[in-house]
């Protein structure tokens, strides 16, 4: 049984079907990429996994199972137990994901206390350990979010997910707002989570080069549908769908000759 199994997922706003996904699976210790352009339905899919799509006014049908447990139709109080604790999420703009008026430590401990970390001292210990594992000093807990760089904040987002001991991490364009050298650090961290903690990661991105470097499997989405799904190397080397080929051709590559005339 896979960690996450999406089956026959249909998300609609009124008459408009925005996601129509036959099948998508994420195993433990596996990174699955969900790639496509703006409006292809990537983010709506993640909202459905978090049980948030219907709060946005969407109608959700089909099946989303986490460890065999059906999430669609679960009441909000049950979803709250899963969201954050078992399924964590990191966002594109870490600057917007943190409340600027609270110190990072307060935000961090609040998350741990909400999801049952036991005593305050245990929570503090877990927070410090999680920060060290993303190569940050626990000192940073005393800072405000705006005193930190985007890369540091994104690593803190990951640390919170780690401290909560989540099973599934949804990463929605987590490196798109970061500089390329910092992006490399974050990608390396995500690989570490897969290997050392056996976390399953659903990685949303429009950047096929990043997906190619990071993901074990990739699903290419277009207009709400998965047009191609398979092992990343295979999809990249031998794309079956015309749209996948178009996307791959559009990725700019570092060439020696420079300007072609």
């Amino acid at each position, binding site marked *: 049984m896979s960690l996450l199994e999406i089956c026959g997922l249909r998300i609609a706003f009124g008459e408009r079907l925005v996601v129509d996904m036959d099948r998508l699976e994420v195993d433990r210790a596996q990174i699955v990429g969900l790639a496509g352009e703006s409006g292809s339905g990537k983010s709506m899919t993640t909202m459905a996994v978090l049980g948030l799509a219907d709060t946005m006014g969407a109608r959700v049908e089909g099946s989303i199972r986490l460890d065999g447990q059906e999430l669609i139709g679960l009441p909000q109080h049950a979803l709250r137990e899963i969201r954050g604790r078992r399924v964590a999420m990191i966002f594109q703009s870490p600057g917007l994901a943190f409340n600027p008026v609270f110190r990072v430590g307060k935000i961090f401990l609040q998350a741990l206390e909400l999801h049952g970390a036991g005593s305050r001292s245990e929570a503090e210990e877990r927070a410090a350990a999680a920060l060290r594992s993303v*190569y940050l*000093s626990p000192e940073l807990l005393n800072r405000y979010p705006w005193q930190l760089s985007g890369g540091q904040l994104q690593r803190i987002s990951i640390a919170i997910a780690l401290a909560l001991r989540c099973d599934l991490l949804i990463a929605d364009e987590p490196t798109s707002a970061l500089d390329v050298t910092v992006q490399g650090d974050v990608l390396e961290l995500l690989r570490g989570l897969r290997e050392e903690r056996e976390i399953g990661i659903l990685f949303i991105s429009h*950047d096929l*080069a990043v997906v*190619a470097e990071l993901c074990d499997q990739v699903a290419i989405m277009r207009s709400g549908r998965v047009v191609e799904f398979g092992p990343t190397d295979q999809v990249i080397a031998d794309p079956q769908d015309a749209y996948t080929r178009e996307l791959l051709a*559009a990725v700019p590559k570092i*060439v020696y*000759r*420079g*300007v072609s005339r």
Partner: protein
Amino acid sequence: MTNLLEIRDLRVHFGLVRAVDGVSFALPYGPYGVGLVGESGSGKTTVGRAIVRLGPAVGGEVLFEGKDVLRLRGRALKEYRRHVQIVFQDPDNSLDPRMKIGDTMAEVLTTHRIVSRRQAAARVRDLLEEVALDPAFASRFPHQLSGGQRQRVAIARALAVGPEALVLDEPTSALDVTAQARILALIKRLREERKLAYLLITHNLAVVSELCEMTVVLYLGKVAELGATGELLFHPAHPYTAALRSAVPEVDRAARLARIALAGEPPSAVSPPSGCVFHPRCPLCIDRCRVEVPVLREVAAGRMAACHRAEEVLAGADLSLVRDVMPDGAAAG
């Protein structure tokens, strides 16, 4: 005169922040592309804005055909803007949402007295066709167009005055990958048709490799390295260029390089490090780098680098770095 624009020792300071601290390079006559690359806070956008006089410069010169444009005022400044235009990253913010596309473009044409009010509509249609848009878009509002189409409008508007040079500030960074590919193809076509010179500001080395003959790498307001794009990307002379290049994700497995990890976080421009500004993160840092500021010097034919050990980097020195356990604590503390 071989260069259309020459930037000499340009300095832009915001209070204590030395955003641009002595940058020099040249933009030859078109068709020619110069790439200006660097990460957030490197000063690349500030350089671009200073060149088109949208931002203040505290020192240095920007020479357009030999004349310093930093001193221009009034009519002379307006005249300069017919020659050098800018296209911004986000067309959502650079196009007035309440004006029809045609009116936005006609405004430029009449302000600069390119054509009379009566002839403006016809010229707008020609310009839209030149950037491969339906001339009927003239009667639409920006929100009725896609991001890629809006960026085409922004380019067409910049071309309206018939400039010799464009400053393109991250023109594709807000776009999807297929829209990006189409804009890059458009820039390639326009540079030949119009003999355009452009300064392409971007963080994307692949975009630079496809569109620019020369590349300037900025780090914390200073030029780290500059030279012919292909040579610079494949045989870097500055450790920062090498690290930047190695961090670019590649679809093709064979094209991937071993990543050179940099220690710590990018430093603050308020209190730049002593000596070489890159030294706290550099895998090749020696004592000399901590005290002596490296000057930008010719390290190979047509290549300038600001690094005491550039020859070793060019010769392929090992840049792999053993990561500190907690680099950030040290760098940020």
